[in-house]
């Protein structure tokens, strides 16, 4: 007996820009399908019928496992948008985990703008649900440790120069300047204390 299916309102349209692959040029071959109130990648359609028909493959199992471990709010967001937000345990930053297995973690600022993209995953695992679940758990329990292993990318793929400059200033120049100032203060204090 077939389980009840969601009302099917499929129509295909060539999306100008997919929300799940923003780095792809607009008007590219990305095709999305509206299935009820969900927008899914055409290639993912194989997963949805499998969920209903109980077919057993890695992506289906992984998505089932992911759903079991999401909070009610995260699950509701995942059902609506195929992504969910987590809060980093060490910094309190908000991250958005998008549906996917690579470069799918967006670091958001207070206005929900993407400030950085992160990429990390468990070795030997490619099922998207598993990757997303591992990302959620690590960000919520060992945020700094996980991000040390991750690669990060600019939020805007068309502006890498600005991002690289800002990163250089923040991660190289600023610590160097602070180090020199601190060293100078220490030396000056020593000199004054020794009366030289």
């Amino acid at each position, binding site marked *: 007996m077939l389980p009840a299916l969601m009302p099917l309102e499929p129509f295909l349209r060539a999306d100008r820009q997919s929300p799940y692959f923003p780095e792809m040029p607009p008007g590219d071959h990305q095709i999305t399908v509206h299935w009820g109130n969900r927008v899914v990648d055409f290639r993912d359609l194989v997963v949805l019928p499998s969920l209903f028909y109980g077919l057993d*493959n890695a992506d289906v199992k992984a998505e089932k496992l992911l759903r079991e471990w999401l*909070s009610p709010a995260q699950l509701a967001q995942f059902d609506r948008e195929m992504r969910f937000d987590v809060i980093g345990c060490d910094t309190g930053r908000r991250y958005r985990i998008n549906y996917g297995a*690579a470069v799918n973690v967006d670091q958001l600022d207070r206005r929900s703008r993407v400030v950085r993209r992160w990429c*990390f*995953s468990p070795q030997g*695992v490619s099922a998207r*649900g*598993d990757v997303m679940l591992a990302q959620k758990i690590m960000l919520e*329990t060992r945020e700094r440790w996980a991000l040390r292993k991750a690669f990060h990318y600019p939020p805007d793929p068309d502006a890498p120069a600005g991002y690289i400059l800002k990163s250089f200033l923040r991660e190289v120049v600023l610590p160097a300047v602070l180090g020199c100032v601190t060293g100078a203060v220490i030396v000056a204090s020593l000199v004054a204390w020794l009366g030289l």
Partner: protein
Amino acid sequence: MAQQIVMDHTGDTRHEFDAGDAAAVAAAEARFKELTGLGFTAAERTGPGQAKIVRAFNPAAEETLFMPRLQGG
């Protein structure tokens, strides 16, 4: 029944054991030590949407998830 869920290339593999069965608990503990020794991270589900990383086997845990070593990509 307690569950140990191991992430792998098939999605996941689940191992159930009865916390009241000493032999099953011993096997679960051996599996825990083997996987964490291989670099897997063990996480216990503590509530809806909540998990904590564990470094020691807890026979009372209802669900323990084992995730392979993290890599950047």
